């Protein structure tokens, strides 16, 4: 039986006909939309490489059935930069050498953006490490990743202060 769903992906409405309900959001993004920035690492919710934002919240797209998310608003790594202008988390990761092979990096970026929206970690490195524990980096770039997230957070705090001043 075919099922029709529609999603908003990086701001654009996309309609799909699913001939099989087994399709995950991860496979839909990669195989149907060719948005391959979202990575398939473990495919079992353990590594975080597939992290995307659904309705503003970070989740593991490998453990989400597309059919169950009809109507969802999705942000992937392809949607975070504005043209050539990198998202502050992207820029900070480059500045702090927050990656080596780069495979986990889109997941880390999406997770960090989600974490900053959640507002639980602030500028505390220990809380950042705890709140980012759902993303693994087998190259071991964690120190740079934490520094980058803290810098991006500080930049956001500053721009919020400027806005409210």
């Amino acid at each position: 039986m075919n099922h029709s769903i529609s999603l908003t992906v990086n701001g654009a409405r996309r309609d799909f006909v699913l001939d099989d309900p087994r399709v995950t959001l991860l496979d839909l993004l990669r195989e149907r939309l060719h948005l391959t920035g979202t990575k398939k690492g473990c495919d079992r919710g353990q590594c975080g490489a597939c992290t995307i934002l659904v309705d503003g919240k970070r989740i593991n797209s490998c453990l989400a059935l597309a059919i169950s998310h009809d109507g969802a608003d999705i942000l992937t790594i392809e949607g975070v930069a504005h043209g050539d202008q990198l998202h502050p988390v992207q820029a900070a990761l480059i500045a702090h050498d927050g990656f080596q092979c780069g495979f986990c990096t889109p997941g880390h970026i999406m997770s960090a953006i989600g974490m900053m929206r959640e507002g639980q970690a602030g500028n505390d490195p220990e809380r950042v490490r705890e709140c980012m524990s759902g993303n693994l980096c087998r190259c071991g770039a964690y120190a740079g990743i934490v520094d980058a997230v803290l810098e991006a957070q500080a930049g956001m705090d500053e721009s919020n202060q400027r806005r409210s001043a």
Partner: protein
Amino acid sequence: MKPFDYVRPATVAEAVAAAAQPGAVYLAAGTNLLDLMKGNVSRPDRLVDVTHLGGLDRIEHLADGALRIGALVRNADLAHDPEFASAYPAIAEALLSGASAQLRNTATVGGNLLQRTRCAYFYDTASRCNKREAGSGCDARDGENRSHAVLGWSDSCIATHPSDFCVPLVALDAVVEIEGGNGRREIALDELHRLPGDTPERDTTLEPGDLIVAVRLPPAARGFAAHARYLKVRERTSYAFAVVSAAAALLIENGKIKQARLGLGGVAAKPWRARAAEDVLKDVAPTADAFQEAAWRALSDAKPSGDNAFKIELARRIVVRALTLAAAGTPARMPALPASPFASTSGALHA
């Protein structure tokens, strides 16, 4: 993953009818179910998606002082609800010590209760497992079993229940509201999960089609807010299941414990309520001696199911530490590393 039919009911009644069929299971967030299906551990014929049902995602304050948490409330939304976290701090701490931020953003209250064991032999379809396939045997008994049960286990199954959330819930007398073929009923959370006995394939007392619609905390549960902690030892500081955990909640008046609540996690096939230990603590001063006695009582029936005798002594020490931390008072802010014995803000207390 085996093919399945997908059903999205519009009402609870439709959901119950659709899920009462053989081979049908409910789908909430799917964070555990999809993982099991990808590994062919669970092979349902039909998924009944309840995530679009209305009215199950609310946190309601009832007139009698109870709190009703809808089954579809997300773990993160519950833990970060400021009112909830201040009234039930041990539950919030337990929630935040479980899984990862991504999983907590989607995993639901009802799904957390019904997650399956993480016993490696249950997950490995090449192994014998009485829980996965009734009567096939248990390869955990002679396998890698240092993380397995020390309370309530049987020769058929030595698996543990993995939930953190359930541990303070059972300590605080949580009630589970269920919609089934014969209408609505409710049971104590302590009666939801079963010990394995000869039928470990049945995790819970639910009947086919039964849908958990809410978890309710009775009015007395908020009385412990000033002295309530969750403490969890795991193989790594974050994003790991409990080796042993404890939820401790005290009601202290005039220097004496008026009431104590104690739950243990990672030790049995169900969240373990340690009532004998609670009795020891009634009307005594919160002293190290009293906590040691309570810990001894809590584990008096424990026995190793394999290479895991260490868990009994570990559980005693975790009980003493959790009670000590609870007596010292609920921290004003959630610790940076929730429930971690290695947290810098935990008071560095040693049992």
